[in-house]
Each structure stands twice: as structure tokens, then as C-alpha cells.
């Protein structure tokens, strides 16, 4: 059926192929590896030339398939981009909120205040010339009128009205607001009143002869029972001192620590600390003495007599004698601000 020559050629070819298969089955280091690498070099050279010759064709088909895929790819990437951008924006927002909460918790932790965090949900119109905000915590959260409101920078204001889920807060910069203030370090006291402008407060020293310098920090003096103002909260920094020592009254301009226009996370002090934190809550850069010894305030001591025994040793006599004076200085505030 097949000629002799055909059979010979066929069997030679098949035997050669089978030999290659068997030799190659032995793996990479078999006798064929040299042959393979030489052949791969020769064929690779030819392929390189051919690839250059065919590059317009392959380039065109690649371009075509790219074009085919591109619209889908653009759509997918656009969608992904939008998702990521939204995520990034919320991330920045979340981060800012976390940082604000962190700062509030830091103040509350250092001072020992018990707080309820809240978010500003509305701000009173500027043309009312009153600085009020609404926060999303109310009676159901344990908020009552005349509680102190703080944020990470310091004193924000006090609660004037509450509903079940919201509260209205009068900011410290409102012109009706008056807070008993104490100069950190020198213990001089006075009244910090709002001017109606968001970046300045006026501070009236009770002792006209007292030494007051630009850069002095003010903290709250504290009201009776911690209401409406808890003690030891940073208020602001003296930026300008008016009058001269010895004048009947001396008034200084104070820049509040809080930035009224960017208020977002605040906290309501539901229970002031038993012991006045004094200056310990102030920003570290603003005060020279990093760790003042806590001294019980007159109001705090009268409120919680059991506590006096433990801190009695730390309480200096002048402070105790000055306490009634401070009380009188502090008590007018609610009536002033309330009225």
C-alpha cells in the first residue's frame, strides 16, 4: 500500500520525533537543552525581525482592542474614582470630627469633667447680633440649662434652653455673656464678657493694680456648683491690655481659644470636677507651669465637704480666704448673662 521510500521517510520522522520527546521528558538539563537554546536564539532573532515587520499590524490591533476596551475602562475608572473621592471627602470630615472629639476628651480627661459629646446642628443668624448655636443633645441626654459647653480648644458657652433632643447654647462671645475668669499663673480674677464679635472678649480685672501682660491665658473661675460655668476651662489669651496699673478699672482684650466659625464637635459638661483643675487644662504652650497642684475651690469644697480632707494639705491659706470673694465675683455672672 505504501511504497518503501514512503515508509522509510515516515518511520524516520516518527522515530526522530519520539526521540526528541523522550529526551525532552528528562527535563531541563537533558542533552537537548543546548540544542534548544541555540534554536531559541536563531528563532528568537527571526521573531524579532518579524515583530518589527508586523509591528504596524499588531500595533493597530492593539490600538483597536484598546479602543474597544477603553470606554468600558473609562466608565469603570470614573465610577471607582467617584466612590474613592466620596470616601476621601468623608474621610477628611471623619478625621476632623475624630480629632475634635479627641481634643474634647483630652480636656475633659485632664480636667476631670464628665461630658456629653454633641454636634453643632444650627447656628443663629449673624444679623441677630447674638451668638447662639443649637446642638444635637437635649434633655434625653441629661442636658439641663446652665450647663457648661466646651470643645477641644476650651470654653464655648453655656446651655440656655433644652428640648428633648436639642439644646440652645449661648456662646462666650455673645454680648450678653459674662464669665468669671482667672489669669493663669497670677491668680488675678475678673469678668470676661462677650463683645458680640467672634474674635474678641473683654476682660475686666477686679484688682486695678494687678499685673496683666499680653499673652496671659485665662481660665474659668467657676460658678457655684459648676453652673453655668465649670472651673478651670481655657477661655482665651490676652492680646491687648488697656489702661495703666492703678486706674479704677482695667480692661484687656482677650482672643478666645475657640474658633466660633468652625465649631462642630462640642461637649456639655454634665458634672464639673470635684477639684478645680486650675490651669492644667490650658494648652501646654500657653502656660509655663505644666503641672500645678490641684487646689480645691471654695465652691467645690462647700459642695463636697468630704473631699476637703484629702486635699487640705495642698490648699494654701490665701486661696481659702479668697474663696468667698471669688464667689461673689462669680455669682453675678448668671444673673447678668441670664438677664
Amino acid at each position: 500500500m505504501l511504497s518503501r521510500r514512503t515508509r522509510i521517510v515516515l518511520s524516520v520522522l516518527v522515530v526522530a520525533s519520539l526521540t526528541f520527546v523522550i529526551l525532552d521528558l528528562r527535563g531541563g538539563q537533558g542533552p537537548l537543552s543546548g540544542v534548544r537554546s541555540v534554536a531559541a536564539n536563531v528563532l528568537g532573532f527571526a521573531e524579532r525581525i518579524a515583530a518589527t515587520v508586523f509591528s504596524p499590524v499588531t500595533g493597530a490591533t492593539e490600538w483597536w482592542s484598546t479602543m474597544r476596551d477603553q470606554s468600558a475602562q473609562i466608565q469603570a475608572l470614573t465610577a471607582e474614582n467617584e466612590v474613592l473621592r466620596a470616601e476621601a471627602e468623608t474621610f477628611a470630615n471623619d478625621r476632623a470630627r475624630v480629632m475634635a472629639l479627641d481634643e474634647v476628651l483630652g480636656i475633659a480627661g485632664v480636667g476631670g469633667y464628665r461630658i456629653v459629646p454633641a454636634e453643632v446642628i444650627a447656628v443663629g443668624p449673624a444679623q441677630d447680633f447674638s451668638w447662639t448655636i443649637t446642638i444635637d443633645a437635649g434633655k434625653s441626654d441629661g442636658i439641663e440649662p446652665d450647663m457648661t459647653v466646651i470643645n477641644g480648644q476650651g470654653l464655648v458657652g453655656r446651655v440656655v434652653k433644652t428640648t428633648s433632643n436639642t439644646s440652645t447654647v449661648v456662646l462666650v462671645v455673645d454680648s450678653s455673656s459674662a464669665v468669671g475668669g482667672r489669669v493663669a499663673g497670677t491668680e488675678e480674677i475678673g469678668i470676661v464678657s462677650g463683645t458680640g464679635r467672634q474674635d474678641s472678649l473683654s476682660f475686666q480685672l477686679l484688682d486695678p493694680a494687678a499685673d496683666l501682660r499680653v499673652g496671659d491665658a485665662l481660665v474659668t473661675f467657676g460658678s457655684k456648683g459648676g453652673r453655668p460655668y465649670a472651673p478651670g476651662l481655657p477661655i482665651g489669651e490676652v492680646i491687648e491690655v488697656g489702661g495703666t496699673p492703678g486706674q479704677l478699672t482695667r480692661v484687656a482684650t482677650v482672643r478666645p481659644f475657640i474658633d466660633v466659625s468652625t465649631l462642630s464637635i462640642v461637649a456639655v459638661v454634665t458634672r464639673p470636677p470635684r477639684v478645680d483643675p486650675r490651669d492644667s487644662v490650658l494648652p501646654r504652650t500657653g502656660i509655663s507651669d505644666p503641672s500645678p497642684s490641684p487646689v480645691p475651690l471654695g465652691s467645690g469644697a462647700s459642695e463636697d465637704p468630704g473631699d476637703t480632707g484629702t486635699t487640705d494639705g495642698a490648699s494654701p491659706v490665701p486661696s481659702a480666704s479668697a474663696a468667698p470673694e471669688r464667689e461673689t465675683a462669680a455669682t453675678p455672672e448668671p444673673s447678668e448673662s441670664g438677664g
Partner: protein
Amino acid sequence: MTWRQAVVIGITTFLAVIVQVTLLSRLGLPGATPDLVVVTVVAIALAMGPVPGATAGFSAGILIDLAPPADTLLGVNALVYIAVGFITGFVIDPRDRTVPIMIGIVGLATAASTLAVAALDSLMGATRVSWEDMPTMVLTSALYAVAMAPLVIVGMAWVARRVAPDVSVLTG
């Protein structure tokens, strides 16, 4: 088979292999890569006969296994292509060398060689063959082969007549 035929076979299979790896496999067509090598082997077998067909199959199979980036077992493709070349050259009757029949033979041969290479490869345990894709691969490779067949067959027949006329076409 004459020396001129052998030279033609060598050059043709070499070109087919180079074109296949550099051009056809880069076209990114769906399914299998158009198997120009098998089509060329079949075309040689149809034009020159079973022995040149088997020789072309051997040459093409060895070259396709050697050409980078091939990493298959050397000789497997050669065995299959020898069979393809010999059988297609043997069964073709000179009297019904009509284009449709030859194209049909190309399609069948390509499908069979795709299957046979896959079967042999998995038998040797050399490559992982995914059998779920095999129907698609067989079908698409046959379709591409049918599409390429007229040009390659006519071209090969022309070359065989002009460059290496040989009476062995008829004797087998």
C-alpha cells in the same frame, strides 16, 4: 520528494511558525490562536503529497516547539503534525481537489490536531490542559483555519507548481 521541495518545505514552515508567534498570536482574537502552521502543513500535503506533508509536519512541529516562547515538550507537535501531513496528503484524491473539499479537510485537520496535541500533552503530563475550554478551542481554531485555508492552499499550490513540480503528488 525532491531537494527543492525540501527547501520549500523548510522555508515555508519556518515562515509559518514565525508569522504565527509574532503576528497571529498577538492579534488578540477570541478563542484559539489561528493555527497557520497546521494550515500550512495541510496545504503542503495537499499540494505535494503525503511524504512532503509528513516532512513539513515534522519540520513545523519541531520549529513550533523550539520557537520562543514555547515551553512545551519538544516533539509532541511534530508527532501530531507528521500524522496530519501524512494522512491529509494520503487521503486526498487528485480527482476531487476542489477548493471546498480542501477547505473542509483543513478545518477537520486543525480540529483533530488541536485535540491530539492537547491529549498527548496531558498524556505526557507536561502541560495543564483545561478540558472545559477544549470545545471552544477546537471550534475556533477550525474556524480560523478554514478562514485562512483558501489563501494558503492556493498560494502553496502555486509555489508547488512553480518552484518544485514533482510527480510524487500523484504516486503518494
